[in-house]
């Protein structure tokens, strides 16, 4: 069973943090098809968060086809495939590995790389403002 944790200062809405953690757990094989997610009440009791937030997260995961809600039974992992825009994850990972090697050689440490990565990724998502 997965346990969620929240980062308060991230600026990422709570529901999205849960969505991302489920997706990531499925990606890494920590959650497998048929596994049950914690019930809304369990998550609420563990994290002291609003039940609507958990419902919102589970609804979104259901829409994405990652999980499936079965009425009165629970919410289950439906798929071990996380939809990725470009399905070429392997290729992307390899080119990223090459990039990391280059960055190391250039003297960047992990934090430098993370900062550079975040900075490069951000404009695309941050400009999506309601």
């Amino acid at each position, binding site marked *: 069973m997965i346990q969620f944790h929240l980062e308060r200062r991230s600026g990422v809405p*709570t529901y999205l943090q849960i969505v991302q953690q489920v997706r990531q757990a499925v990606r890494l094989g920590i959650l497998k098809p048929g596994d049950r997610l914690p019930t809304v009440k369990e998550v609420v009791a563990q994290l002291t968060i609003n039940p*609507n937030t958990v419902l919102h997260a589970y609804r979104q995961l259901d829409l994405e086809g990652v999980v499936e809600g079965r009425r009165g039974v629970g919410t289950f992992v439906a798929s071990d495939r996380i939809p990725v825009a470009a399905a070429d994850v392997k290729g992307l990972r390899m080119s990223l590995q090459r990039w990391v090697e280059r960055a190391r050689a250039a003297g960047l440490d992990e934090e430098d790389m993370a900062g550079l990565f975040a900075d490069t990724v951000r404009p695309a998502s941050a400009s999506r403002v309601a």
Partner: protein
Amino acid sequence: MTEAALSTQGLGRRYGSTWALRDCDLEIPPGTVTALVGPNGAGKTTLLQLAVGLLAPTAGNVRVLGHDPYRQPAQVLPRVGFVAQEHPLPRRFTIAETLRLGRELNPTWDDGLAARRIDELGLSPAQRVGTLSGGQQAQVALTLALAKRPQLLLLDEPVASLDPLARREFLNTVVQAVADAGIGVVLSSHIVADLERICDRLIILAHGRTLLDGAIDDILAGHRVLTGPRSSAERVERIHDVIRESHTERQTTLLVRANGHVYDACWELHEVDLEEIVLAYLGLDRAGRGTPSGRRAVVSR
């Protein structure tokens, strides 16, 4: 379930010549957990006391679950749980006597729920309220409110006087009640840190007026910090609401409520957390970075 949990139109309350609350227009949907945030004297307590009919409005009106709490208390009070600031309880009563008071006063009282909760808290019915810690007293007051099986729970600064652990336990009880019974909650607080986790809506009050009212996810999505070379906020202001601006010698930082897309190559965009948004609306600058703009009135809608 379409009637609002709490709605106000032009609601105002005056003490002598001072307006504690003024021109307050709100609509809180049922089944939501709403935070009322604002500094001391913002009108939070006045609003909650108007909502349970402890005060009569000086202007406008307030409806709770579709009824006027002051004129139709019988329609409102049995359906509303209220925990006042400092959760006052008779200190010399035992817990058992306190629960009996609740039972005698409330037609919808659930004795089993009350007894179960006291047991879960590790308290004995024979203990006197005055001997309990602040956190335990708050939990007993909350038990009284929940055992009424209310549709709406109103909490006035429920956690202000509690230590962090007691605060978390108290709020945990609240959210579990929301999960169990689908009740709506309105709580006032000036501790912003907890609110993002447990609330889905936020209302900021200051000087008796509403500055911001919306779903927290929308508020987070709609606010951004822009940083860029020192310049005037004027151009940004034509499109977005600038909530706070600060300048250093070379840099300008703006916190804006974005109306549509922010796309301007000369500004760098940052996401912003709820606490910073609230502080910006309240006209504070957290660490004294830059100069908070005193002249800029907060933008209301």
